[in-house]
């Protein structure tokens, strides 16, 4: 039988699976051996099964008002235990630094007084909210959930591409991908221990309960969604169901006397913690956009009065501004006294006129990004941009240097991805998810690997024809088999409302 990887031609970028043609890296050896005997036809069949499962289960994202399935590639991405250890420590370090920064921004602002970060950065940030000043959340946590995007460069080194500490999304695909893969290709999992992911909802719920206002023994947690037309609605519904909490919309909530209630068939019921997936701008028409119908009037005052916790915190956007990103290594040193474990991508700030001129001259060799853009919006990749695009972006940068950064273009690593009948190299990135419960920052083993499906596409995003891959973190030898781990996790999910974190040695073993 023809080997399905025979015709695989590496793309010139760092390949995640192959060291050189035909020779898989150590962490991929078992997977390679399991995939190799499958013929092209078998692969196609399994891929169709996967796709149908996603359509039937309604695993979709909304793009431009249309529900689309989020394609899952058959070939997983594998991360070995040692590298995952680095990612865990690196992301944890970043989240801790950003938490410290946010705490500082909304209280003493020492970091500005000490000249580590310039004042103008604060005053020009559209996501700095005065209403959050002096408002310290009950257990001090503002980044309950963080998503740090990582990419691997040509030399195989992981870099941080951006931080997301507002409402990072995508975790539902991690959970669904694993479920679909274990159902479609169970044999792949039998050869080695893959760390399970289904612990996430219980961890998240524990963190949310831990963030409840003081004196509330049994807090009511809700998930606030903008509604079914939101791109991530599928995720909101899944998380609410897995956590066993109500999925509410703004119209289900009402504030009275600085307390928050939901409207039920038996009248109003108090709410203590809101895991909101609604942006600051739409959260409360009294403080932010007055025309918003997605939020609840009065919720910010109720939170400021200490009667309800909003997760993630209001005003977090000041910390994941892409211009602040360039200062994160300094923030890690300033707040934690540590050296960054995961480097940034080489980035230029354009608020210095000299640098700005250099960058404008060299725009064709650089990547230009709006500091505020999410989902690859507005990014111009110099080497592949048309002269018109370059002219337009030069104009935009000259107009608002604060609104842009420039980066060295990184040729993202590739991973074999099923295109038609055969695997072909496609560029990928990685978004690990971190949950901060106030005592510890826990990382979901793996995270979301996104694939840019069009050949050569370097912006990895679902709205640009992206897909995803199941992401495997290999465990230590001798760790329990994934099947029994999955079985053990069932009660945690089913009884999620009662789950409380154990802070024992097992927890430390996660590192």
């Amino acid at each position, binding site marked *: 039988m023809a080997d399905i990887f025979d015709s695989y031609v590496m793309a010139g970028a760092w390949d995640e699976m192959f060291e050189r043609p035909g020779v898989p890296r150590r962490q991929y050896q078992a997977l390679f051996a399991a995939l190799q005997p499958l013929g092209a036809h078998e692969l196609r069949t399994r891929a169709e099964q996967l796709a149908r499962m996603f359509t039937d289960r*309604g695993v979709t994202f909304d793009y431009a008002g249309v529900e689309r399935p989020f394609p899952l590639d058959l070939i997983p991405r594998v991360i070995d235990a040692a590298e995952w250890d680095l990612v865990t420590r690196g992301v944890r370090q970043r989240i801790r630094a950003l938490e410290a920064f946010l705490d500082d921004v909304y209280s003493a602002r020492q970091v500005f007084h000490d000249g580590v970060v310039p004042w103008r950065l604060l005053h020009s940030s559209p996501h700095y909210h005065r209403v959050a000043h002096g408002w310290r959340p009950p257990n001090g946590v503002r980044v309950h959930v963080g998503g740090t995007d990582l990419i691997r460069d040509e030399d195989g080194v992981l870099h941080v591409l951006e931080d997301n500490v507002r409402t990072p999304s995508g975790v539902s695909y991690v959970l669904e991908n694993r479920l679909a893969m274990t159902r479609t290709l169970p044999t792949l999992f039998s050869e080695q221990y893959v760390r399970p992911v289904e612990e996430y909802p219980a961890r998240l719920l524990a963190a949310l309960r831990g963030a409840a206002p003081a004196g509330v023994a049994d807090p009511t947690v809700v998930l606030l969604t903008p509604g*079914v037309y939101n791109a991530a*609605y599928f995720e909101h519904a899944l998380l609410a*169901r897995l956590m066993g909490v109500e*999925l509410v919309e703004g119209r289900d909530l009402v504030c009275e006397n600085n307390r928050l209630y939901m409207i*039920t*068939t038996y*009248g109003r019921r108090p709410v203590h913690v809101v895991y909101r997936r609604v942006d600051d701008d739409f959260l409360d*028409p009294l403080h932010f956009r007055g025309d918003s119908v997605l939020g609840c009037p009065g919720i910010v005052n109720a939170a400021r009065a200490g009667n309800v916790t909003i997760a993630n915190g209001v005003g977090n956007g000041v910390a994941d501004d892409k211009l602040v990103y360039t200062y994160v290594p300094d923030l890690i040193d300033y707040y934690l006294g540590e050296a960054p474990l995961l480097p940034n991508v080489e980035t230029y700030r354009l608020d210095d006129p000299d640098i700005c001129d250099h960058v404008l001259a060299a725009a064709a060799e650089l990547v230009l990004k709006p500091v505020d853009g999410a989902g690859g919006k507005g990014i111009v990749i110099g080497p592949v941009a048309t002269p018109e695009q370059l002219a337009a972006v030069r104009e935009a940068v000259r107009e608002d240097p604060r609104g842009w950064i420039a980066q060295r273009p990184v040729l993202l690593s590739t991973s074999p991805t099923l295109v038609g009948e055969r695997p072909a190299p496609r560029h990928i990135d990685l978004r690990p998810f971190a949950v901060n419960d106030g005592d510890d920052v826990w990382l979901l083993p793996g995270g979301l690997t996104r694939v840019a499906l069009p050949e050569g596409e370097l912006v990895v995003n679902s709205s640009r024809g992206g897909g995803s891959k199941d992401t495997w973190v290999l465990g230590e030898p001798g760790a329990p088999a994934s099947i029994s781990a999955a079985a053990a996790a069932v009660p945690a999910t089913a009884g999620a409302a009662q789950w409380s974190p154990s802070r024992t040695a097992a927890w430390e073993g996660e590192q």
Partner: protein
Amino acid sequence: MTRPLLSRIAETLYWIGRYVERADDTARLLDVSVHRMLDEPETSGSLYAVLGLSPAAPASPQAVIRRLAYDVDEPASIASSITSARDSARGVREVLSSEVWECLNVTWHHLSGLESRPPHAYLAFVRERAALFFGLADATMSRDDCWRFIVLGRSLERVDMTTRLLAVHLAGDRRLLLQASGADESFTRTHGARDGEVLEFLLLDRLFPRSVVYSLLTAEKCLRALAPDTTRAGVADEAQAAIGRVRAGLEYADLNELRDRLPELLGALQEACAAAGEAITKRFFQRREAMAWVGA
């Protein structure tokens, strides 16, 4: 201890129950009517009238099927009901079991692909999927308020649609009526091959689950569990009162007069369903008042 249910979710569940039952009943109604239309083309007019649609000139069976089954722009069509049920379910996925949600989602995905098949295959598919939906809801959902709102919606819709079915086919073949209600075999086992008791069976039978009285009793049971009555006399809940009154009227009706009083009874049933629907909306489905800025 049942957990309070968001009003928005309760309302959505109630309507999911109604939409799925409506798709099922419309499929049954169409299936038997199409046969009759071949002989009596004017049936299409009474069919439209009974579904509350603007009366059209007598249409071909194909046109009727197209409008009442496939046409997503026709609110009364099966395709619309399934789409509404599925879209509603999408908004309350977290309270439905994933099997129930998948059932509706798969039904919706498959429906448009079936239009090229014979109408009977399409209608049979809809009936089977509706049965699967309610079966899965029964098998995988707790008997809490979520489930009760689905069953309540289904029961009221069933009363409504059985009443309409009777109104269209009053003068027609009694066996078709029985087939449309899936009651053919059950009736024959109970009453033998006579068709004198068909009306009695569809309206008053206490054991057959698609009879009007059975559905009214089910709706009452749901309402009693949702809103237990604590008063010593009378019934405070308006929905319970409306349903209870019409149910008692039916149960104690003189069987010999049943046939003559039928139009009056069917009218009373329609009114009671409408009144109960309004009362349920008022009591359980409150909304936050719309807010607006006042002043300069």
